[in-house]
């Protein structure tokens, strides 16, 4: 279809009125630039926001207990109960699709009273009793030493891992940290590691002022016995925790003599659902990007169609001459179609390149000024570029269709008569 002769014909025709060709091409150029930029910005926003979830096991939920709201089996309403450590084993055996079940306990809170002492220094920190799996649910970088281990759990060792904020509050600069002791609520703990949250955005300070210790040690040292404060539960990758959670609640209710319809007794936060919601939001934003971009592009396409109509009108006589010389209607039509196609695709390619340049500049600026809240690495994937190209080809053909038809509608004898 595209022989060298065809190219010559097309380029000659497009060159015949350079300024007009340029103006027409600008419409499509601008349309595709906006389309690609919109998608890139959406992507940047998405990258920025989902960075908060980055590395975190998003297929997770947190579950705690609240006062019952219904009397059941002779027990009154308004009763408080606790998960026990054997609930964890029960959950694991009942639901093989759960990847991690981490029981947790907490002491102290943000802005609480001073609860940790080292020599003359004191501080108020959040203290958690955890299992080793927890690092898989909430990824953190171990800066020195190690995280808690199963032998710590079994031996109920009084060890702890401390955040950078704790280090800053309790230690002098350049002081050795590992092997020192800190006193938490009057009990001495050996520091075996320091950590930094991998994805802290917004909660930096709180995350840094945290101390982790073995769950079993925590229970014994702070008199929690078998009680579990709350649980962080992660399902395997291909099964949504949201689909499992009702069954989990039912099991917990039956194990703790809670009325099966008492929904208030168990509190939970479904991270998976939140994440889905955010993902859904970005799907919509991406759709809006395509939609708005396509609309802008469409006005460019209409511009091309319009100009091609004028070109065809201007060249009516030329088309008549060509037909007198033996050009079939299809030859004429395909030439007009190809002219519009070439114009659309060329200007579209320039548009895509220009958008890529703008994205590159944006990234360079972002890199030099450092991270910006909720916005990171605006980019488009190669699929988006291909989609844009397909849109261009289709729209180029559409733009040429009406002009191509009108070019051959007139009888050659009438076309030749036009002055």
């Amino acid at each position, binding site marked *: 279809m595209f022989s060298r002769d065809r190219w010559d014909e097309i380029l*000659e025709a497009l060159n015949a009125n350079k300024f007009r060709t340029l103006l027409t091409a600008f419409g499509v150029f601008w349309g595709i630039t906006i389309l690609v930029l919109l998608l890139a910005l959406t992507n940047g926003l998405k990258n920025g926001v989902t960075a908060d979830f980055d590395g975190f096991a998003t297929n997770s939920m947190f579950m705690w207990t609240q006062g019952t709201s219904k009397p059941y089996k002779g027990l009154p309403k308004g009763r408080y109960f606790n998960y026990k450590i054997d609930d964890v084993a029960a959950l694991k055996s009942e639901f093989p699709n759960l990847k991690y079940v981490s029981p947790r306990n907490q002491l102290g809170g943000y802005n609480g009273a001073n609860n940790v002492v080292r020599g003359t220094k004191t501080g108020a920190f959040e203290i958690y009793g955890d299992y080793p799996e927890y690092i898989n649910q909430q990824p953190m970088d171990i800066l020195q030493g190690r995280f808690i281990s199963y032998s710590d759990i079994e031996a109920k060792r009084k060890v702890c891992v401390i955040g950078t904020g704790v280090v800053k509050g309790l230690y002098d600069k350049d002081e050795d940290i590992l092997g020192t002791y800190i006193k938490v609520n009057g009990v001495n703990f050996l520091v075996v590691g320091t950590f930094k949250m991998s994805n802290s955005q917004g909660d930096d300070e709180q995350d840094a002022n945290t101390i982790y210790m073995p769950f079993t040690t925590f229970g014994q040292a702070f008199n929690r016995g078998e009680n579990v404060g709350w649980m962080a539960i992660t399902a395997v990758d291909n099964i949504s925790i949201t689909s499992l959670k009702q069954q989990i609640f039912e099991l917990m209710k039956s194990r703790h003599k809670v009325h099966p319809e008492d929904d208030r007794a168990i509190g939970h936060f479904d991270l998976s659902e939140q994440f889905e919601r955010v993902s859904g939001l970005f799907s919509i934003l991406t759709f809006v990007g395509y939609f708005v971009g396509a609309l802008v592009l469409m006005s460019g396409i209409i511009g091309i169609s319009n100009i091609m109509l004028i070109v065809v009108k201007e060249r009516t006589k030329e088309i008549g001459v060509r037909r*007198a010389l033996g050009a079939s209607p299809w030859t004429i039509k395909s030439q007009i179609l190809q002219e519009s196609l070439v114009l659309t695709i060329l200007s579209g390619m320039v548009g895509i390149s220009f958008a890529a340049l703008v994205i590159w500049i944006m990234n360079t600026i972002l890199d030099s000024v450092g991270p910006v809240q909720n916005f990171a690495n605006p980019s488009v994937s190669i699929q988006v570029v291909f989609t844009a190209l397909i849109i261009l080809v289709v729209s180029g053909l559409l733009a040429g269709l009406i002009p191509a038809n009108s070019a051959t509608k007139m009888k*050659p004898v009438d076309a030749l008569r036009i002055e």
Partner: protein
Amino acid sequence: MIQIKDLHKSYHMGSNSLHVLKGINFNVKEGELVSIMGSSGSGKSTLLNILGMLDEADTGEYILDNVPIKNLNEKIAAKYRNEFLGFIFQSFNLINYKSALDNVSMPLYYKGIKRKERTEKAMHYLQKVGLAEWSHHLPSELSGGQKQRVAIARALASDPKVLLADEPTGALDTKTSYEVMELIQGINDEGKTILVVTHEDDIAHMTKRIVNLKDGIIIDDSKVEQVRASLHV
């Protein structure tokens, strides 16, 4: 070469109907140089358009080189025009953004001939009309006479059976007209069948036969003594 029997054509404009050709009968043999004369409105252009398959007759028979021309769709008409006919127009109708050479090679392009052969042939015909040196000039850089020569070269390029010239000298001064006619006579001398529509007597007398049209019928069809254009140049 051309046989026409009882050709009728009318145009409809709203409720009015204009009967332009009212039964034309005439034959042209191979190698003839015929002029079709008549005042404006006599139907001579309509006749030429029908002969050129640019327009279709309402009734009647038209046989070109033993091929009956009827019920053509545009695709076949385009093919026949390309194979059988060469057009020469009053206003030259060159494509203004193409060089003389490219203009001449256009019919060959539509015939599907390869670029190299096309350029050679086109160059050959440009030489024939004496414009080889002008081959890369645009039509806007040529004089009227030169443009018409390019147009004649273009009409000849696909080696058609018949040349159809619609007022080929209508836009030219007398001297240039005679030069163009000299060229046409020369092509006829080589055996090409040529039909010329004109309303100028001196041009008509440079052909070998004059067909006179009036109000859609042939009132006179006679052979004439050909005046050689070279005598006037």
